[in-house]
């Protein structure tokens, strides 16, 4: 019973945090505050990077550093899964 009450309180706090964090950007008008970066990319992406797909030109050219981080996350996840499964197998054998 006590655990359930604690879980309910934690849930309410998290939901309130999320709602208060998410609502203010949604309550603004669409497209405000205006940004100059997207107009620049839409107008110049094909000429500068040669890509018809503007999203790919952002991901692999303008914001390439973020994509490098994304690939690193994938690499780390794969390495962790393989290491973890192999290590747990080895521990079962030794014990």
């Amino acid at each position, binding site marked *: 019973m006590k655990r359930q009450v604690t879980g309910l309180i934690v849930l309410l706090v998290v939901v309130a945090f999320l709602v208060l964090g998410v609502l203010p950007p949604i309550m603004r008008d669409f497209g405000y505050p205006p940004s100059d970066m997207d107009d620049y990319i839409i107008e110049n992406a094909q000429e500068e990077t*040669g*890509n018809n797909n503007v999203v790919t*030109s952002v991901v692999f050219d303008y914001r390439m*550093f973020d994509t490098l981080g*994304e*690939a690193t996350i994938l690499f780390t996840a794969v390495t962790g*899964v*393989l290491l973890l499964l192999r290590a747990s197998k080895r521990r079962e054998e030794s014990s």
Partner: protein
Amino acid sequence: MLTKIVRTVANQLIVFILIFGLYVIAHGHLTPGGGFQGGAVIVSGVAMLLVAFSSQELKKSLRERVLSIMESSGALIFITLAFIGIGTVFAYNFLVGTPIFGRIPPTGPNPGDFWTGGVVPLMNLAVGLKVVAGLSAVVLALALFAGGEEVEE
């Protein structure tokens, strides 16, 4: 291992899944998609083979060492391509205007020329290789672990 009907259908279907995944990877600079998405398509085909056949059967053709080498080489190609353009800035698109993938399409709607995009198609291929190898290794390792098998070196 499932019944013969499922195995036959999976055998026929994997060809089309591989072709579609390769299409999404290779045309990442022209159509929606790219390396990550096309790699996920191909890995879904691998998961289908894993369901249709057993994981022991699939282990014979997908060696973990080969998958590790594929993933590492994909990451290396990616970082190398990013570092070649460091004379201007990190990850500079140095191939635009050169004979390799260098044509510049007209601004606005156009039919789409494959030989465009500079360094982006090569990076899509590298990321696709990386995603295919990495996620296949994860799916296969989890299936083998659930079946009580050892991950093959």
